[in-house]
């Protein structure tokens, strides 16, 4: 049952992905409705899949690479639905591409339910993991908005129109949503890191591994973005560049470290 739900969701995302690519290549916003319907359908099936997995294992469906990728794909889509409902910003096509990519990736990892050491099985760990992935999802969507902002800004500044800028929303809304996403994502990410740190210290004492160190580094970059934006009303373009940079750090933390090094998270 679970597998079917996953494959079906993946299929809907794939269809949405194809239509999104078509829109971006043709630079014409005419498939938005179909993309919306497809991604909502995929999302509903995907949600059932996650719930089913949770009921089966009794732990948040987030601890293996398969689970983390799929939960992440689900989160960014959820966030973009909220954005669409609140701001009517037509960005779903960009998100769906990412959602499908992560979902596709997720399909390649082993799907068995990961066994966690009994001393780690706790609500706190669930909260840590969910908040970490969801926080990162918020920051990822912020990254997409920053990228779109930079593309749009460049097109208008360089006076080279007729390209992608036609299907990208206006600069003001891009910046506004980017700001709110970081405003929301950063605290969640922070809580996740603090909870993780507490748990880590109580379990292993003070011993840092690459994933943790990298997370703290990433966190500091976000702290600076957060500070500069909230406190200083920083120039929008620079904020966008920094968000892109911070996201690349996240990406490396998510994949690079997990795959390259022998970290504590991997040993779970």
């Amino acid at each position, binding site marked *: 049952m679970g597998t079917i739900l996953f494959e079906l969701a993946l299929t809907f995302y794939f269809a949405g992905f194809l239509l999104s690519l078509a829109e971006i290549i043709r630079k014409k916003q005419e498939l938005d409705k179909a993309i919306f319907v497809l991604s909502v359908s995929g999302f509903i099936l995907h949600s059932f899949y996650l719930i089913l997995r949770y009921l089966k294992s009794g732990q948040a469906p987030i601890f293996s690479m398969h689970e983390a990728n799929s939960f992440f794909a689900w989160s960014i889509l959820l966030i973009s639905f909220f954005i669409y409902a609140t701001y009517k910003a037509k960005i779903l096509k960009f998100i769906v591409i990412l959602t499908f990519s992560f979902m596709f990736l997720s399909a390649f990892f082993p799907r068995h339910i990961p066994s966690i050491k009994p001393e780690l099985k706790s609500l706190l760990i669930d909260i840590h993991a969910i908040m970490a992935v969801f926080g990162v999802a918020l920051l990822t969507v912020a990254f997409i908005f920053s990228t779109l902002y930079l593309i749009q800004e460049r097109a*208008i500044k360089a006076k080279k129109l007729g390209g992608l800028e036609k299907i990208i929303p206006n*600069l*003001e809304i891009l910046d506004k949503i980017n700001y709110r996403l970081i405003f929301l994502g950063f605290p969640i990410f922070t809580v996740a890191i603090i909870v993780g740190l507490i748990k880590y210290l109580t379990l292993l004492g003070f011993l840092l591994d690459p994933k943790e160190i990298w997370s703290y580094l990433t966190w500091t970059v976000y702290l600076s973005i957060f500070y500069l934006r909230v406190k200083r009303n920083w120039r929008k373009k620079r904020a966008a560049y920094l968000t892109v940079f911070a996201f690349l750090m996240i990406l490396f933390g998510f994949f690079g470290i997990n795959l390259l090094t022998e970290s504590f998270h991997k040993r779970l």
Partner: protein
Amino acid sequence: MSLSVVGINHKTAPVEIRERLAFSKTETIKEGLKYLIDKAKFNEAFILSTCNRVEVYTYKTTFSNLEEEKETMEQLIKNFLSDFHKIELKEFVNYLYVYKEREAVEHLFKVTSSLDSMIIGEPQITGQVKEAYEIALSERSTSLILNHLLDKALFTAKRVRRETLIGENPVSVSYATVGLIKKVFDELQKKSVLLVGAGEMSELAMKHLTESGIKEIYVTNRTLQRAEELAKLFNGKAIPFEKLKEQLTKTDIVICSTAASTYVIDEKMLKEVMFLRKYKPIFLIDMSVPRNIDPTCNNIDNIYLYNIDDLQNVVDSNILKRRKEAEKALEIVYEEVDKFFQWLNSLSTVPTIVSLRNKAEQIRKEEFEKFKSKFKNLSPEFLNSVDYLTQSIVNKLMHKPTVALKNGDMREILILATRRLFGLDNEEE
């Protein structure tokens, strides 16, 4: 058959001629259509009159394919224009164009799809054709052929709009300006605009901006009196010229068009302004020649500066894009013209024979049922004989017309005549 159009447009005739031949009111069009049907004896007629064109489409059933007959049709329309508008024929005859048959269909499809417009792709013409069609319908001056022709023309226009990018990019400077501004700002109704000086182009841009919802408008000018005049015109507030810099710190959009020979707004000024406005984005449009805003200002973060040439470039490239799209659109037009002629040919034999026979059979059945319910005590054998009798009468009656229709000689005329005589196209009668 004979389908023809006689007309003038912005390419062939100056406005002085166009306005004299125009049918400016619904009533005049109706009178014109009446003239064409009643006096000139056309079977069907349609008049399209806009500020850029006057075109008279007519359809007449001809009994041969003789060129002379077509010549007379053309002459009839020309005489109609001259007679109706009380202008000597020789005054305008050289401006006219005439298309017949396939060319006429092609022309109407192009016109309706806005491929023949002054600004290619402008959407108004489709609506104007629709209105003219409605007038013709209310006057009952169109029927089988022109109705189908106009339906298909509107359908083609719809396809062109849907399948090409012909209406996508603005091709006037003032629209392009508003489009650009909307790429930077989100809710225009919450934004403010400052007009520095005034010119024709900037006034037009202001008009489009207010149409897009901008309410907060400021106007400044070297002379305060002129500023106040302009402010009144746009429902805005006049600002003394000395306060320009101060105003720049709180305005989102600036349209500059003064007669000054040097920069009115320079880089140093804008750098200070940007600092004061905490780098909130500002969109500056310099419509003046020589330029009034230092072009290097575009290098400052969150300043978007477009001058008149930049805007013209945007428009030019959009026009170029539309031309390219127009080529695609032409293919659609040719496709639809083909389809129209296919339909015209299918008006032909088979469907007409089928509906003729159906009609006859329907009448026979109805009458037979009436007969049966009237004389209830007749024996079944007798009724069978009556049934047989009526059937053979209908068959005999239908035989000759069927053969004639199948024969192909003067087919179209016969088909139309059959359809008309037996009321095959209007079921309600």
